[in-house]
């Protein structure tokens, strides 16, 4: 029986752990938080089918019960030592022997206060998509002044595709998240005017494009191609934005009651630190560097160290689950060579 240590107990970590345990390995999950599920705990429902996030959380919680997986919550890795073909992983005063390690440390949501011109945590009623998920969960979509918003802007690409934040890449899931949230709001508040301000709409899945069309056709969501350059407050306690309506080639301004910033996905603040600890490469963006984009997304630059989920690249829940299963297969193949 081989020993595998998984770093991170989000959906990527748990799914990889279960897939490996299913193959008869002894698996340990080391998780910093006091519970499993990671960022998914913050979400209300998922694109493109509006499945409740709790259904996915329940799936992983039930799945893990089938296996004898050792859970080490509220713990972080402090030291990694070579041990023959494998490693010793130290956390607190416990030492784990591992024939293989899977890093599933996840991502950070872009800190929207860094785009200060968009007014996050400066003006009332500027939210991120994560804040809105929390509002969905509480069932209260009113503004901080207790009124139903008459007009809402959803701002795409906040902290993505932006040299000013040193993030050149596309976080890819925000576009469809915006469309999903627009539809959820439209269902809840049918009289509210909703606008999406986008640079490109990257609906990379067939269901996403269908969702986009449905947002236009059935929910009257309006899509304006232009990046929001400035958010400010108006005398009547509303917000005002500036953008270019690029398709008409003219600047545009609009008053609103609520702004939702689609903050991108970034490598976790401590991903580089974790990478140093395990001596694996990262990309310039801070995400872990896969050894082969096409054939080995989960394989990192050091023997026996693998990765799963959004610590490799921004990805959706579906892709994370698939990626976790694929990484588990790669780990199994590797273990056979030992």
């Amino acid at each position, binding site marked *: 029986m081989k020993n595998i240590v998984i770093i991170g107990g989000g959906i990527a970590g748990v799914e990889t752990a279960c897939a490996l345990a299913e193959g008869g390995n002894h698996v340990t999950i080391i998780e910093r938080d006091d519970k499993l599920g990671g960022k998914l705990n913050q979400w209300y429902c998922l694109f493109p089918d509006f499945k409740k996030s709790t259904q996915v959380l329940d799936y992983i919680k039930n799945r893990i019960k089938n296996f004898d997986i050792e859970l080490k919550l509220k713990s972080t890795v402090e030291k990694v030592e070579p041990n023959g073909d494998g490693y010793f992983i130290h956390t607190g005063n416990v030492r784990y022997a591992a024939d293989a390690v899977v890093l599933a440390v996840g991502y950070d949501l872009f800190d929207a206060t860094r785009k200060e011109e968009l007014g996050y945590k*400066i*003006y009332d009623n500027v939210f991120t998509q994560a804040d809105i998920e929390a509002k969905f969960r509480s069932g209260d979509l009113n503004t901080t002044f207790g009124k139903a918003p008459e007009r809402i802007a959803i701002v795409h690409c906040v902290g993505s595709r932006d040299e000013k934040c040193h993030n050149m890449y596309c976080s890819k899931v925000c576009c469809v998240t915006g469309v999903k949230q627009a539809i959820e709001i439209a269902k809840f508040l049918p009289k509210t005017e909703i606008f999406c301000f986008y640079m490109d709409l990257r609906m990379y899945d067939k269901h996403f494009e269908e969702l986009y069309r449905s947002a236009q056709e059935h929910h009257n969501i309006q899509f304006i191609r232009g990046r929001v350059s400035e958010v400010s407050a108006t005398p009547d306690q509303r917000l005002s934005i500036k953008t270019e309506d690029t398709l008409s080639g003219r600047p545009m301004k609009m008053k609103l009651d609520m702004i939702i910033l689609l903050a991108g996905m970034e490598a976790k603040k401590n991903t580089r630190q974790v990478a140093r600890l395990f001596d694996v490469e990262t990309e310039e963006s801070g995400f872990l560097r896969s050894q082969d984009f096409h054939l080995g997304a989960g394989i990192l630059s050091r023997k026996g160290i693998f990765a799963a989920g959004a610590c490799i690249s921004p990805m959706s829940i579906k892709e994370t689950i698939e990626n976790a299963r694929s990484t588990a297969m790669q780990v199994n193949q590797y273990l056979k060579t030992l």
Partner: protein
Amino acid sequence: MQNLYTVSKDYRKEIADDKYYYARSCIRQNFFPGSEVTFLNILKKDLDRDVFDDPKHTTCTGIAYHSDVIPFDTIQTVVARHFALMSENGYENFIASCVTSFGMYIEITETWKHFPEQLELIREHLKKATGREFMIPKNIAHTSDIVYKYRMRIAEQMKYPLVNAKTGQPLKVVDHIGCHYAKMFPDKGEGGAEFTQVLQGMIKAWGGATVDYPERRHCCGFGFRQYLVQANRGYSVSNSKKKFESMQPYEPDLIVANCPGCAMFMDRWQYTLNEMQGTRYGASDTMIPVLTYEEMAGLVLGYDPWDMGLQMHQVDVTPLLDKMGVKYDPDGKYRTRTGRPIGSYTPQQSR
């Protein structure tokens, strides 16, 4: 709506404590002739700082540079000479009165950081032209940074807070920063480019309330090329108009500007717009008085408004003085200190 901005560590600016070499502004001393003297008086008398006002320094040539009249190498050499004068007088901290000069000093020192060969070339130019050698200042600040740094000490000595003396309400003050202060190098301005704190800090420390209006971060419209060429001035006045219209619903009591050019245009364009279109901004029919931050600090400290040259403003400041309860001699307004009349005043007709 409340503005909850807090300065992040990226936009914390280091400002020297003392021993400043002072570079005057071409336009501040012409448009607002008492402003710079007031600054020097505040630093020397009220704050007990060592500041050297050097008669040998010249224009930084920033206006000519921004209007494509002189090339970059030339302005770098002029600036190098200023640094040489600073070093020769034993100073290391350079403070500029003009926002555009400040922007130039930063642009040039940053250029030298990234292109050391350019620095060597300029050393050579200066040596050939004047025989001088120079050191790069240890600290470069705009003079408003100094007032900002010592705002609490000024508050301790405050005579007239930025408060309506009759109602006790804080005055509604519009702050205008000036593009060259932090829009080129956001980390060189306290609070960065979007929510610059330098004037807000003073206003709040002295009892006023800042007005956070939608076009707050917009340019005043000066923009050298727009203003210098008469045919382009429509761009300039239209930008100012956009700002006035955006701030008008708040009925501000006062505009305070960081940059001498902005102070000039926010002041003069109100008159121009009134002549062109009959519009008047502000709560009453008096237009919105515009002060430089030196003048605002001087008023707060109880300096005589006419000694500070406030009668040289286009928009009459007396309604503001009355609001604040500042004591002044109405007859002294258009007289020199020795009592000689300096011109007559014909009130503008309301249109």
